[in-house]
C-alpha cells in the first residue's frame, strides 16, 4: 500500500489490544475495533466539517446581504467615541485598535488590583472563620454565606447605586484633605504627571534587573549560598528604587498636578472613578468569599497532628499557622485559587453593565458602530483566552514549586 497509509494500517491493526488477541483477525471487517474507531472519527469529522461549512456559508451570505465587509481592516479606522478612563493616553480621533488596547489595559488593571485585594481579604476571612473566637467565626461565616449566594451583577448594581447616590455633585464635593475631593465623579487626588514615556529606558532597566536577578539565582543554585540577609534587603530596595530614580531622571517635566474645579468637573490630578471603585469593590468582596472557603478547606486539610506537634513544641497558634500549617495547606489551596483568579478576571466583564470601559464594553461599542460582529467577538474571546492562559501558566509554575517533591 502507499507508504502514507502505513500509520492508518498500523492503528487499524495493532493499536487496539482486542485485535492482537484473536488468531483469526480480519482486518477489513466490522468486528475490527480499530476499523470501527477510524470510521466513527471520520464520520464525526465529516459531520463537524459539514456543519462548519454550512455556518460559514450562511454567515458570508448574510454579511454580503447587509453590505458588511469581513476582515480586521476596520481596526485602522478612526474610533470617534470617547472613553471615560484610560491607563494610556487616548483621544476619540485614535483608531479602533487603540481603543481596544485601552480596553484590554483597563481589564488588566481591574484584574490585577482585584486579585491582590481579594487574596488578602479572602485569606483573612478564611482564617477568621476558623478562629476560636465564636463571634468572629460567626461574622465571617455570615459574610461568606451572604456574598456567595447573591449574584455578582446585583452586588455591582448595589455598590454603584450606593456610590453615585450618596456622594455629592462636584460643585459641592467633600474635601477631607487639601487637594483631595470626593464627589459622585469619583475620588480626585493630586498626582505626578509629566513622565517621559521613554520605553527604551524602561526596557533597558528591566533587562538589566532581570540579568542581575538571574546571576544571583545561579550563584545560589551552584554554591548553595544565598546572599546575606542584609545584602538581600539592600538588593531588594535597589531593584525597587532604580525604576523610580531613572524615571525621575529622564523626565524633566515632572510635576505635581493639583485638581481644580473648572465648570462641572475637576481638571488635573488623578481620578478614581465610581465605576472602577464599584467594580473593584464588588469583585473583591464577592471573590474574597470564595477565596475564604478555599483557604478554609486548605487549612482544614492539614492533619490535626501538625497543630498538636506545633503546640507541643511551645509555638503559639499564630506561629503554628504561619510556619507549619499554611505551607502545607498551600498545596491544597493553589489549584482552586487559580480558578478563583480566573473567575475574577472573567467576572470583570460585568463592567459593561455599570459603564466601566473594559474590553467587553469597548468591543461591544466597536461592533455596534462598525457592524463587524464576528471580528469583535473574536477579539473579546482572544483577549480573555490570553489572559486566562497567562494566569494559569503563572499559577502552575508556583504550584510546581510548592508541590510535594517525591523522591
Amino acid at each position, binding site marked *: 500500500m502507499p507508504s502514507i497509509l502505513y500509520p492508518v494500517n498500523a492503528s487499524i491493526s495493532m493499536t*487496539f489490544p482486542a485485535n492482537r488477541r484473536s488468531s483469526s483477525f480480519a482486518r477489513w471487517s466490522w468486528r475490527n475495533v480499530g476499523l470501527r*474507531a477510524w470510521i*466513527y*472519527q471520520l464520520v*464525526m*469529522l465529516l459531520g*463537524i466539517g459539514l456543519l462548519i461549512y454550512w*455556518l460559514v456559508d*450562511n*454567515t458570508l*451570505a*448574510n*454579511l454580503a*446581504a447587509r453590505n458588511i465587509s469581513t476582515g480586521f481592516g476596520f481596526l485602522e479606522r478612526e474610533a470617534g467615541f470617547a472613553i471615560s478612563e484610560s491607563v494610556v493616553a487616548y483621544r476619540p480621533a485614535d483608531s479602533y485598535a487603540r481603543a481596544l488596547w485601552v480596553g484590554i489595559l483597563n481589564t488588566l488593571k481591574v484584574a490585577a488590583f482585584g486579585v491582590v485585594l481579594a487574596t488578602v481579604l479572602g485569606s483573612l476571612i478564611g482564617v477568621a472563620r476558623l*478562629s*476560636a*473566637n*465564636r*463571634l*468572629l467565626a460567626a*461574622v465571617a461565616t455570615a459574610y461568606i*454565606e*451572604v456574598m*456567595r*449566594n*447573591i*449574584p*455578582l*451583577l*446585583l452586588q455591582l*448594581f*448595589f455598590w454603584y*447605586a450606593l456610590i453615585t*447616590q450618596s456622594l455629592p455633585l462636584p460643585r459641592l464635593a467633600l474635601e477631607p484633605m487639601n487637594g483631595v475631593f470626593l464627589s459622585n465623579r469619583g475620588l480626585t487626588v493630586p498626582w505626578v504627571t509629566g513622565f517621559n514615556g521613554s520605553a527604551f529606558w524602561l526596557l533597558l532597566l528591566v533587562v538589566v534587573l532581570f540579568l542581575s536577578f538571574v546571576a544571583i539565582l545561579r550563584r545560589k543554585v551552584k554554591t548553595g549560598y544565598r546572599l546575606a540577609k542584609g545584602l538581600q534587603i539592600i538588593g531588594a530596595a535597589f531593584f525597587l528604587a532604580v525604576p523610580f530614580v531613572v524615571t525621575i531622571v529622564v523626565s524633566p517635566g515632572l510635576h505635581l498636578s493639583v485638581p481644580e474645579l473648572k465648570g462641572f468637573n475637576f481638571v488635573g490630578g488623578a481620578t478614581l472613578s465610581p465605576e472602577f471603585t464599584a467594580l473593584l469593590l464588588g469583585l473583591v468582596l464577592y471573590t474574597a468569599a470564595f477565596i475564604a472557603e478555599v483557604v478554609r478547606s486548605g487549612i482544614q486539610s492539614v492533619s490535626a497532628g501538625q497543630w498538636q506537634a506545633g*503546640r*507541643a*513544641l*511551645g509555638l*503559639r497558634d499564630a506561629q503554628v499557622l504561619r510556619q507549619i500549617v499554611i505551607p502545607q495547606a498551600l498545596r491544597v489551596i493553589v489549584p482552586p485559587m487559580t480558578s478563583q483568579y*480566573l473567575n475574577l478576571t*472573567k*467576572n470583570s*466583564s*460585568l463592567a*459593561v*453593565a455599570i459603564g466601566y470601559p473594559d474590553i*467587553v464594553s469597548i468591543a*461591544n461599542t466597536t*461592533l455596534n458602530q462598525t457592524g463587524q*460582529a*464576528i471580528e469583535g*467577538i473574536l477579539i*473579546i*474571546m482572544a483577549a*480573555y*483566552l490570553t489572559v*486566562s*492562559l497567562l494566569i494559569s501558566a503563572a499559577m502552575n509554575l508556583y504550584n510546581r514549586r510548592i508541590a510535594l517533591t517525591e523522591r
Partner: protein
Amino acid sequence: MKVASARPDLRPQRWYHTLVNTPLNALITVILVGLLGATLPATLEWLLLSARFGGNSPQACAQVTGACWTFIAQKHRVILFGLYPYAQQWRPLVACVVLIGIVVLSCRRRFWRPTLAIYWVGALNLVGILMWGGVFGLSFVETRLWGGLPLTLILACVGVGLAFPLGVLLALGRRSDLPAVRSVCVVYIELIRGVPLISLLFMASVMLPLFLPEGVNINKLLRAQIAIVLFVAAYIAETVRGGLQAIPKGQYEGADSLGLGYWQKTLFIVLPQALKAIVGPLVGIFISVLKDTSLVVVIGVFDLMQATKAALADAQWQGFSTEAYLFIGALYFVMCFSISRYSQSLERQWRRTA
C-alpha cells in the same frame, strides 16, 4: 504564652469564654461588638421599625425615613412576573412551583435513577404548556411577554437539564481513545471555560442571526438559553471528568473482563459511580447557573433583574432602588442558600457513613 510543661486546661469551654480568653480575642470581640452596635440597630430601624408597609401610592412613603415596602407591595407582580398578562399570572406561578418541585425532587436520594430524566422531561413540558398556552383552553402568550422569576428558573433548569447530557458526553469524549474525538472535546471545553459568560451571550445574540440562513429568526430567549447551555456544558464536563478519574481502574477492568462493550460499561458501571461522587460540585454548578442567569440583562432578556430595573424605571416611583434590590437579593439568597445548605447536609451524611 502556653507552654507544653504546664498542665493543659481541660475544662469544657463555653462559647462565650472563647470571646475573651486571650487579649487578642478580647480586642477582636470589642471591635466587632462596636461595629455591630453601630450598624445593626440603624439597619433594623431602617428595614423594619420606621418602614412603611401599607398604602398604595407613592405619597404613602413621602414622609417615611425608613424603607418603603409599599413599593414592593405595589410592584411585586411586575418584578416577579414581568409583562405577563395580569389575569393569567397564575400560570407562571404554577410553573415556578413545578420547577422548584422538580429541583427539590432531584435532591431526594430515592429519585437518583434513570427515571429522573423522564420526570425532568415531563416537568419541563408541563412548564412549557403553562407558559405558552394555546392548548387545553389556555390563551397563547408569546415568549416576548415572559419575564421575572419564571424566566430565571426556566433559564436555569432548562440550561442545566440540557447541558447535563451534553457535559457527560463531552467528559466521556475527553477521556476517549479516539484522538479526533478527544481533540474536539478538549478544544471545546478549554475555549468555553476561558471566556466569560457575557461574551457568549453577546455571541449568541449577535452572531447567531448571522449563522442561520436568511429568514430564520430565533427569539432572544432561545439565543440566551443556547448560550447558557453551551457554557454550563463545559463546566459540567470538567466536573464529570473529575468524577470519572476518581473511579478505581479495577471497575473498568472488571467490566472489560465481563465482556461488556464501551457503552454498556459506561452506562451501567462507570457513570452511576462517577455521578454519585460529584453530586456536591454539581449542586455548586446549579447554584452558579442560577446566579449567572442574572447576566441575561445585558442582552435585554426580561429576567428577574431586568424586570426589577423596569419596575424602577416607573416615573411615579423614584428612588426606591435599595428596596427593590434588597427584595430580589433576598429572593436569590433564599434560593441559593437553601440549595447550598442541602448540599452541605448531603456531604455531612456521606462523611458519617463513609
